[in-house]
Structures are given as structure tokens and as C-alpha cells.
């Protein structure tokens, strides 16, 4: 009996050595479906027209650039086969062999790239970047040499063409219906439901590698309580609104990932109307307390980013009785809340600000026709660094021509400082993003542009039973 017990003990010990949990190196787990609520309604998915962090997250997951800037600052070819060849002011980029588009796996060809770059001329966020290229018959001099080669005529010698092509708004759109089924080359292919939801599916032929998770489903944005309740019930894997209803401890293990991102919000005056003189505009500036915008998710900051000086704004006593109009897109709830908060602050000083909720189309029309006095704009720097931030702020403020002129000097900090100081807009603060999510979600991060790392996400491995 004793011997049998001893034997069993030895066997148990041996098994425990073999099956004891260990630490070490195993790559992330493949597979799984993540369901998150959309933080905001979603329109067409176009990298050249990205405004919100949510849109930026989706665009990053679906599209790739010819080049990308790595965290260490180096520029690496993604859809390009290698660095561009530059002779004088002519640059040539060869496409990476075998790069495929979503939706059937057609090869990416030079015509897709040329078409994608040329279509950005109509985008305020992206068109200023095309100032890096010479014009030809009123269009940027970008042409297809053969199926795999693109030729770009530079505005002047010394332009870092690979860096410009790494700008996020210049990501390559391979076609498709941007409202339903945009075609890119990124780690996920996307299908938009037209009601604010989107489904991202793994693209195994992505040039930067397929994602770990098979699918990410974004359900249409919903009211706060509905969203949190669905999260608590396990129907959603995360919530932007809260960890639990009524402040209780969540019933499931939960984590919170948050970040203050480098995408400032600015208040832009229309100097062609009531705010034409510095005194009126200075009165508005003096009336706004940035700290009171914290409750709409903005971290108060005076500068576009840490390295740039604050814009030199006029200050004056508020002029009571001034009547102003601020159009806001009705599908941008955070902007609406910020606009209402600003209206409240101005109201305290006797300035009447009317916040007009408009559809996206009507909003665009109102801006184009100059039917506004103030508007909120989000600044999304297309590249790391001070110059791109200053250029993006100019573009967001509607000063596209000045932004365009800045492109050849993007790397010069002095020019960026001068531009930031001369910016005729008030920096309200920087966006703060919070996502509460299930605890077994690994590798979730929010980058400086407010993008979720969807391609890097993975679910935790579960213990496999010993067999």
C-alpha cells in the first residue's frame, strides 16, 4: 500500500512538472470576434476625409500607404517595393509585387494608386499635401508609367517624396463603394451597413500581415445607457461610455484603456462676417474657459502640440449683444456637446451663439457658402512632427493655400513655429479617449492619432486541458 501511495505521489509530481503553467514566449492567439459599439455615427470611409478618431481607426485598418513612418521615425515601404528613385524633380515608385486588394484579391496596380492620389485633390484635409508635387494641366503631376510604376513630378528638388506619401490622408484606396464596401489592402476588409455600423474581416494577404483577430464588428452608435447595458450583458465587448451602469463594479472582468491623443480641436472664426475685427474675435476668445470643456472629453491645452507655440490670439472685452452662428454636424455628438458648452460660456458674457444642427451635406454647404461665424474643427496631423501638425491646423482652419505652401518646408521647425503662432484659430484642447473593455483583450492601445490598434489586438489564450 505504502509503495502504491509513493508511486502515485511520484506520478503526480511528474505530471505536475509537465503540466504546471509556465511563463514564456508564445505569440498572440489567432481568431475570435470582437464586438464594439461605434462611438459616433459613421459615414463613408475615406482616408482623405477622416475627421474623427473612429474614422481614423477604421481607415488605418482598411487602407495602407505606399510608405509608412515607423515609431522610430524611419520611413518604410509598405505598398511600394522599396525607396523611391529620384532624378532631379522626377520620382518613381515601384509597387510591391503581389500586393492584393480586398474583395477578390485583384493585384494592386499603378492605375489604382494614381487614381487614389488624384482623388484627394477635392479633400480639404488631404489636398494641401499635394503641394509637394508639381501641377500639370491644373492637376498634380502623378502618372502611371506601367502597371507597377508610378511617376511623380516634384514641386522642387529635395522634397521627401516617401515621407509625403506616408501621410495618412494619402492612403491608397483601391476602389469600391466607400459608403458600403471600400477596397484597400489593409489587414481588414470592411463592410459598412449604411446605418453607422461596420464589420471588419481578416484579410490574410495584407502586406503588413494579417491581424490576429478574425473579425471586428462595430455596431451603430447608441445612447449611453443602452451601450453600457449591452456591455454589461456581454453583448458588446467594450463601451466608450462607462464601465457599468450606476457606478457598480462590473460583473465581468473589465479593463480600461485611455489616452489623450495628439489631435487638437480648434475653434475657427469666420473673419468675413461678424468676427472680422480683432476686438469681436478677442471678446469671444476671452469668454471661453477651456477647463469647462473637460466634461465633453477635451483635455485643456493652449497649443497644437507640446513642441509648438500657442497661436497669438487677440484679447478684448466681450462685446455684449454680438450674435453668432455655429453650425455643427448632427452626427457628431461630442462636437455638439462642445458647441453647447461654448454657447453657454459666451451667453454668460452676453454673446449669443446659435448652434445649428445640420446634416453632413448641409453642414458642408453652409461652410462652403460662408454661412457661419464659428466652427469647431479637428486637427489630424498626417505625419509625426511639428510641421505636419501646423500644416494640418492651417488646412482644418480653411487656409489650404497657406498649408500647401508649407509642404516643401515641413521638416523645418522654425517655419512650423511661425505657422502655429500665426494660426487664426483658438486651440480648445486635445481629445481624450476612454474605452472600457473585457479583460481578456490583449495588446489594445490607442496611438497618438487616437486610433485603436485593431490589427494588433488578440484575445488571451485559455488554458488547454492536459491530454
Amino acid at each position, binding site marked *: 500500500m505504502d509503495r502504491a501511495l509513493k508511486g502515485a505521489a511520484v506520478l503526480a509530481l511528474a505530471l505536475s512538472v509537465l503540466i504546471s503553467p509556465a511563463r514564456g514566449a508564445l505569440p498572440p492567439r489567432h481568431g475570435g470576434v470582437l464586438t464594439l459599439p461605434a462611438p459616433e455615427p459613421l459615414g463613408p470611409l475615406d482616408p482623405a476625409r477622416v475627421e474623427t478618431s473612429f474614422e481614423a481607426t477604421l481607415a488605418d485598418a482598411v487602407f495602407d500607404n505606399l510608405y509608412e513612418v515607423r515609431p522610430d521615425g524611419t520611413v518604410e515601404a509598405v505598398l511600394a517595393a522599396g525607396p523611391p528613385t529620384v532624378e532631379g524633380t522626377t520620382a518613381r515608385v515601384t509597387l510591391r509585387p503581389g500586393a492584393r486588394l480586398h474583395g477578390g484579391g485583384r493585384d494592386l496596380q499603378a492605375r489604382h494608386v494614381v487614381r487614389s492620389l488624384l482623388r484627394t485633390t477635392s479633400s480639404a484635409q488631404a489636398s494641401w499635401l499635394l503641394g509637394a508635387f508639381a501641377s500639370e494641366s491644373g492637376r498634380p503631376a502623378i502618372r502611371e508609367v506601367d502597371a507597377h510604376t508610378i511617376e511623380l513630378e516634384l514641386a522642387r528638388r529635395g522634397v521627401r517624396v516617401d515621407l509625403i506619401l506616408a501621410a495618412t490622408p494619402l492612403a491608397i484606396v483601391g476602389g469600391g463603394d466607400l459608403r458600403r464596401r471600400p477596397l484597400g489592402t489593409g489587414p481588414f476588409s470592411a463592410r459598412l451597413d449604411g446605418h453607422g455600423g461596420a464589420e471588419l474581416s481578416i484579410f490574410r494577404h495584407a502586406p503588413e500581415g*494579417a491581424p490576429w483577430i478574425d473579425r471586428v464588428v462595430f455596431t451603430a452608435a447608441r445612447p449611453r445607457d443602452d451601450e453600457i447595458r449591452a456591455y454589461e450583458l456581454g453583448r458588446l465587448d467594450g463601451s466608450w461610455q462607462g464601465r457599468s451602469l450606476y457606478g457598480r463594479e462590473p460583473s465581468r472582468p473589465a479593463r480600461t484603456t485611455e489616452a489623450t491623443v495628439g489631435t487638437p480641436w480648434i475653434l475657427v472664426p469666420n473673419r468675413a462676417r461678424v468676427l472680422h475685427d480683432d476686438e469681436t474675435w478677442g471678446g469671444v476668445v476671452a469668454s471661453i474657459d477651456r477647463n469647462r470643456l473637460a466634461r465633453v472629453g477635451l483635455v485643456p491645452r493652449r497649443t497644437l502640440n507640446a513642441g509648438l507655440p500657442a497661436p497669438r490670439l487677440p484679447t478684448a472685452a466681450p462685446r455684449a449683444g454680438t450674435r453668432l452662428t455655429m453650425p455643427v454636424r448632427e452626427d457628431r455628438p461630442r462636437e455638439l456637446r462642445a458647441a453647447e458648452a461654448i454657447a453657454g460660456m459666451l451667453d454668460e458674457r452676453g454673446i449669443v451663439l446659435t448652434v445649428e444642427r445640420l446634416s453632413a451635406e448641409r453642414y458642408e454647404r453652409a461652410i462652403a457658402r460662408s454661412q457661419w461665424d464659428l466652427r469647431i474643427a479637428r486637427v489630424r496631423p498626417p505625419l509625426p512632427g511639428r510641421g505636419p501638425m501646423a500644416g494640418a491646423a492651417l488646412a482644418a482652419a480653411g487656409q489650404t493655400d497657406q498649408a500647401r505652401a508649407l509642404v516643401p518646408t515641413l521638416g523645418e521647425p522654425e517655419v512650423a513655429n511661425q505657422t502655429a503662432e500665426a494660426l487664426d484659430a483658438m486651440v480648445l484642447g486635445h481629445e481624450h479617449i476612454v474605452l472600457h473593455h473585457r479583460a481578456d483583450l490583449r495588446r489594445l492601445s490607442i496611438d497618438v492619432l487616437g486610433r485603436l490598434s485593431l490589427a494588433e489586438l488578440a484575445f488571451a489564450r485559455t488554458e488547454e486541458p492536459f491530454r
Partner: protein
Amino acid sequence: MRTALAALLSLLPATALAQTGVESAGAALAEAAVGSCPGLEAGAFAVRVAVELPDDAPDPGGLVPALLEPTLVALRADPRFAAVHLASFGRDGVDPPRLAHDLGYAALLDVTIRRDGGALVIEGATWRTDDATRLATFTRRAPLDPSIRRFVGFPALLADDAISPRSVRLPGNDYVALAIADLDRDGRPEIVAARPGEVHVLRLAGRRVAIVGRAPIPTTVPRAPSPPRRTVGSAVAMGDRVVLRISEYDVGLVVRLVGGVPSVAVADGPCEADRFPMMGGCARLVVGRDFFDQELTHAIGPTAEAPAHFYNYVFARYEARDGVPTSYEAIVMPSGRLSLRVRTGAEPEIEERAAAAVGYGTALAMSDLDLDGTAELLVSHAALAGDGDQLSLIRALPRGALRVMWRSEPVPGSVWVAAAGDADGDGAPELLAIEEPASGRGRAALWIVR
């Protein structure tokens, strides 16, 4: 001479099929001996052999006929040599060629067999005896595999408490493939560690590694259209070269030492361009994943299919000291499961057994460290990158069981790759693994376990 060559050629099929160290060394000796004979004239031929092996060698006398048989067959086929005798004379300062001449031999092949570290060294000299002129000399080295060990002695069996791991710093980090090979055939092995963009060729020098050279991967090597998110690599030694593949590139690569300088070129085999060389076959990545499909090509094992998808695959045949062959096939699955298949015996009586354990990582290497016919596996452990790691040395027993012999203290870095080979040139294989720095910056550590 031509007849001797013809006789040697007739032996070549056997040479080509030589599987044991004794057969390979005997064939190499015969080839060298025949090649050293052109200047000899007709007459009797003496082959004098001196064996300089340690006193504890179990059967040094048995090694001589086993090694010399092909040489004698080849020389006897040459009509110039009326008689070819295996002889032993001329010790203690007596001049062997003169003594051979006095004994009536026109030619002498003087062979010395000795052990040098982990190799058997065969040195030969051919003499014309009438004027005591040395016509040619040659040296051949053969690794001490079990077939030779049976004559010169086996190492002590590896006990759990005799395992001695050590680590040395590597010059970089982010390595994805590792192999050990004698690239310049000088008897000193080189360690080849590859990372995207660069290959390092290193040599163990006491408690550090010496850099033999760094070779950039040519920019003309085509990039893979859709590599996995985690860079994956594999490397296998093949004689004086290492074939490797890194998922960032669309083709396999070969590393050589050319004039002492490492060079990297596109490989033309043995694996197809889209396959990664493994110890025992060639495997292809599952599309969009960082693990391999179970189908193998150029498989040396009995089946061309691994039991499941895998991060790493190893296959080898080892012979027990009593001569019973056993083959071992091990994989680490994407779930972190270590799976082993063991086949013992020879056709038609092969017994197959299997074993498995969970909780292991991507690094896997296999060797028979003490040449007893059982495989030892070096494996990393299962946890996400950045959470530290641990190494285990596991003995795969022929009865289809896994037994942990040694487990390291937890290490801060992650271990992704491992390899097997005689890294220090002492004739005994080691198991190696690379621990990447925990911070992702700095120098990786090379673990050497034996």
C-alpha cells in the same frame, strides 16, 4: 591507377549511401589514398596504421578494419600493386619507409588515426620506399557519431544534475533563425543567427562570442507580398552552408563563408521558394498566420505530414548504443502543445508511440546530447511576449514519454528560436536558444545547454 579509380567508383554507390560515420570516413580515406598514388611504381604495397586513442577506448583495434576496408579494396584493384598488406611496423624511431623497403614493399601508405576533440582525425602519407620519398599527404576529419563512438567510447550518460546551462551575449537582438555549421570546414563550428535585413556569423570563444562577420541580406531579395504579422524564420545547417528563410522575404537564402567573410545569397534548394527549411523537411506558412501547415516536402521522416499545424518541427533518427534505431518527430502547436511521435525498430517491426504536454512556446530544438539513442528537446514556455520565459530540457524516451530533465530559472526576456549542434567544437552536441531582451532593446543572450 585507373583500375583503382574504377574500383573506387564501384564503391561510390555505397559511399553515397553511407549513413554512418564509419562508412563515410572509410570512403573518404579510400578516396584520399587512391588520389595519393599516381607517382608509385609496381610492387608490393604496405598500409601501415597507427591508432592513437585513449586507453579507455573500448575497441580501437576494431576501428582499423572497419575504416581501412574500402581503401584495401581500391588499392588491390590496381594492377601495379602485386600485393597490398595491412601492416603494423616501424615503431620506436625506426624509419617506416626504409623498414618497408627492407621488408620488400615498393610503396607505403602510412596512416595515423587519432581523436581531436569531437572528431576522428585520419592523417595519411604515401611513400615511395626505394628512395624514401614522400609523395603526398592528406588529412580527413570525421565527427564522432555513434558508429565511431562504438570503437572510441561513448560519453557518460547525461544525468539531470549534470546539465550545465550558460549564456553569452549576442551582438544584436530580434533574431528569428539560428543554426550551427562548420561553414569554413576548419573543424571550428560557426553559429549563424539571422534577423530581418542581416545575418550574423559568430563563433564561441570561451565565455563570449566572437563575431566572424555580419552579412546584410541583399536589397535585391524580393519582399514577401503578405508576410505574417510576427516575423518568422528558420535555418538548417547543410554541410558548409546554412539555408534559411525569413518571412519578410519571398525566397529562401543561403549563408556561406567566402574567404572568411559571410555572404548571403538566394538559395536554390533544397526547399521550394515558398517553404521554410526545418530539421527533417520543408514547411509552408498557413496564409495570414505565423504557424506552418502540416504538409511537408523533402521530408526525411516516414510521413510527409506533421500531426498538426505547428510553430516548429524537428525530426531525427538516433541509434541506441546497442544499434537499435529510433526516430523522433516533435512539434509545438499554435496552442502551445508539444507533441512527440516516436518510432522504434526497423521495418517491418516498427513500434510507434506518441506523447504530448502543454504550456510550451515556439522555440524547439532536438539533439541526442549523450549519444544514447534518446532525444533531448530544448523548449521555451508559453506566455505572451514580454512576460518573461523559461527553458526546459526534456528527454523524449523511446517508450513514448516526455520527462523534464531540467528547467531554468525564469528569465526576463522571451525565447523564440532554438537550434542544435556542436557549438563549441568539442565533439558533443549542445542545444542553443536565444533570449531576446525584455525591453526589446539591447543585446540578446545565447543560451547553451548541455
